[in-house]
């Protein structure tokens, strides 16, 4: 998701198909230095423990990987692929493209997993992949900038949020940095407004296309969102900024907060680390459980892989607490295995606590619903943020796409 969209080249392609016995071909969806180093270390360790296996790790740019995986799974696949939990995985399970790896989920192994993590790799009680990392999404804020505007504590509820916005605006500071050029940053706002207003059960139904986008409960999301838009809480010119460009506002002190994933922490300078802090998205309605967006990444063995046995050994290796601990310390993310320690990092510890105590996890809008609908809906969110008056045209457009993809809603509520 955060990788730049125009980075093009896949590194070391093609070679993957010339494999011999004992070779394990692993296709990895990132070429970023830190990620790459983490996995290269893990591979060395795996080879030391399994001297009969030689691992061939192929690195790809994140975005081009997403486009290529469909060709591999239906053609000549590698033995292990990196992918995403939940709906993204289920798309490949339905046409039988991923191997059933339930045998790895022994009772002891299950004990090491958060319940929602197990659900996210399961279809009909069988498991099709191994989760190894996730991270939190929430408000990252400049404590010093908030304090300078007279906001001593980060917002905990809607009133706090609105008050903070007004105080910041009065100081000439943009309350929220956001860049919607890549569309998905706006979806975090939609997700959290929905999770905090309507809860995870409703959110899941909406993501699975069972509720109309013209539903009253969906309109409530936009009504609250609009209050922030009308107050000018979002940074100007967001439609032409990527999230990377917009984060500069935080570091420059022109903006105070940003709703984003924990990967932003990697970009903090030492000085900025001390000024930044994290807080979960504010509560909007009492009685609604604590639900969080926590995109989870996974490993799978393709159904048509040649070396499935070693593939499963690699997956079992990645499930282990010690392996996940080392990996996630290098990735600066949170291990899914509950027995693994987290890196001694303030933001990760906060995140781990947040997710471990959550009542349920969502995967992020563009992973939870169909790509087709996500693309159309997120453009709608962007248009709404620029022209809130057009909501009555935007929602029917999203709803038309939803009904084309998913058919009639299951529990139609009277549209307003």
């Amino acid at each position, binding site marked *: 998701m955060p990788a730049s*969209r*125009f980075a093009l080249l896949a590194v070391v392609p093609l070679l993957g198909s010339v494999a011999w016995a004992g070779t394990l071909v692993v296709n990895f969806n990132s070429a970023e230095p830190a990620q790459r180093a983490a996995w290269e270390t893990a591979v060395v360790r795996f080879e030391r423990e399994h001297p009969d296996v030689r691992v061939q790790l192929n690195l790809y740019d994140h975005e081009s990987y997403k*486009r290529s995986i*469909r060709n591999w*799974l*239906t053609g000549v696949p590698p033995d292990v692929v990196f992918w995403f939990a939940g709906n993204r995985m289920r*798309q*490949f399970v*339905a*046409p039988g*493209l991923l191997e059933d790896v339930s045998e790895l989920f022994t009772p002891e192994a299950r004990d090491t997993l958060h319940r929602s993590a197990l659900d996210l790799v399961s279809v009909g009680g069988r498991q099709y992949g191994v989760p190894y990392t996730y991270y939190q999404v929430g408000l990252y804020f400049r404590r010093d900038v908030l304090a300078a505007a007279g906001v001593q504590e980060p917002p905990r509820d809607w009133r706090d949020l609105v008050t903070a916005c007004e105080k910041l605006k009065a100081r000439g500071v943009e309350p929220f940095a956001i860049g*919607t*050029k*890549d*569309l998905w940053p706006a979806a975090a706002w939609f997700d959290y407004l929905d999770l905090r207003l309507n809860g995870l059960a409703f959110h899941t139904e909406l993501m699975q296309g069972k509720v109309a986008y013209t539903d009253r409960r969906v309109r409530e999301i936009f009504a609250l969102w609009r209050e922030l838009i009308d107050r000018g809480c979002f940074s*100007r*010119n*967001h*439609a*032409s900024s990527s999230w990377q460009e917009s984060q500069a506002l935080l570091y420059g002190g022109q903006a105070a907060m940003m709703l984003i994933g924990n990967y932003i922490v990697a970009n903090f300078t030492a000085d900025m680390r001390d000024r930044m802090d994290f807080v979960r998205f504010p509560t909007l309605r009492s009685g609604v459980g604590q639900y969080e967006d926590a995109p989870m990444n996974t490993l799978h063995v393709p159904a048509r892989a040649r070396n499935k046995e070693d593939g499963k050994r690699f997956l079992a290796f990645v499930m282990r607490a010690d392996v996940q601990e080392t990996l996630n310390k290098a990735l600066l993310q949170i291990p899914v295995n509950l027995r693994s320690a987290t890196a001694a990092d303030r933001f990760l510890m906060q995140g781990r606590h947040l997710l471990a105590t959550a009542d349920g996890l969502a995967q992020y809008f563009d992973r939870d619903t*169909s*790509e*087709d609908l996500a*693309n*159309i809906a997120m*453009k*709608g969110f*962007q*248009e709404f943020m*620029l022209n809130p008056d057009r909501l009555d045209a935007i929602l029917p457009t999203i709803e038309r796409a939803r009904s084309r993809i998913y058919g009639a809603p299951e529990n139609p509520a009277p549209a307003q």
Partner: protein
Amino acid sequence: MTRTLAQAPVRAGSRAAGAGKRAPHVGLSTVILLAPACLLFSLFVVYPIFASIGISFYDWSGVGARTWVGLGNYRELFADPVFGKALANNLRWLGCYLLAPVFGLALAVFLNQTLSGMRVVRSLFFMPFVISQVVVGLVFSWFFNARLGLFNSILAGLGLPSAAPLDSEQGALYAMIAAGLWPQTAYCMILFLTGLATLRPELIDAARVDGAKGWSLFRHVVLPQLRPVNFIVAMVCAVAALRSFDYVMIMTLGGPYNSSTVLAYYMFEQTFVGLRYGYGAAIATVLLALMSGLIVVLLWQMFRRER
């Protein structure tokens, strides 16, 4: 593609002189020499075109079963407001790209002088075409950047209010076209410069003797001789406008919300972002038809004039 077209006037000219006099001899050696090219062309160009047209009759997510929908994708396409928007944007792009030949010709005439150091100046003007479109797109997105861009500094210098063209649904398309015009003008300029080099000096001298100068010399003596170049330039600009993709991918991603999308980008987006391979293929087919139609018209015009 555009680069090979640059040589077209030369080829067309030499063929007009040499061909037609003698029927070419077709033997085994001809077949053997042509076979590799034909084979590769069929495999990598002709086959994918027909395969893509085939996919456009299905509903397909790239994995799993394809569902036959007949003309369903096309029916949806012609009712799709975004498709209409993309088509209209392509036509606007085409209209604006016709400025490139005008600027290009003006520059070519200006640079077609024998002064010392002229070669260097010409190369400098040609530079933008040598730079990758991706780089030009990046440069212009920074140029138009609302906070840091040179564009707003210039506006401020002129005492005008600041603007953010890439953020506005009216401005984004034209900001990209402006970026595209820069290398496109350079390309037209070089085509016109080669055209100017082939002018017959005796005609110009004769016209001068008859008292023609300035605009009338240009309009009635120079311009008619540039006709073959004009067609190539028009064709190159039309094709560039229709297949514009790089600038959209780099500068706006079709945004804000589809306002600056074009057919080639919409095709890519539907296929690889929305994972609607059938619908994307239908857009590709329409784009192919448009391009072919345009090229046939232009080629036909060119051949008619050559005869």
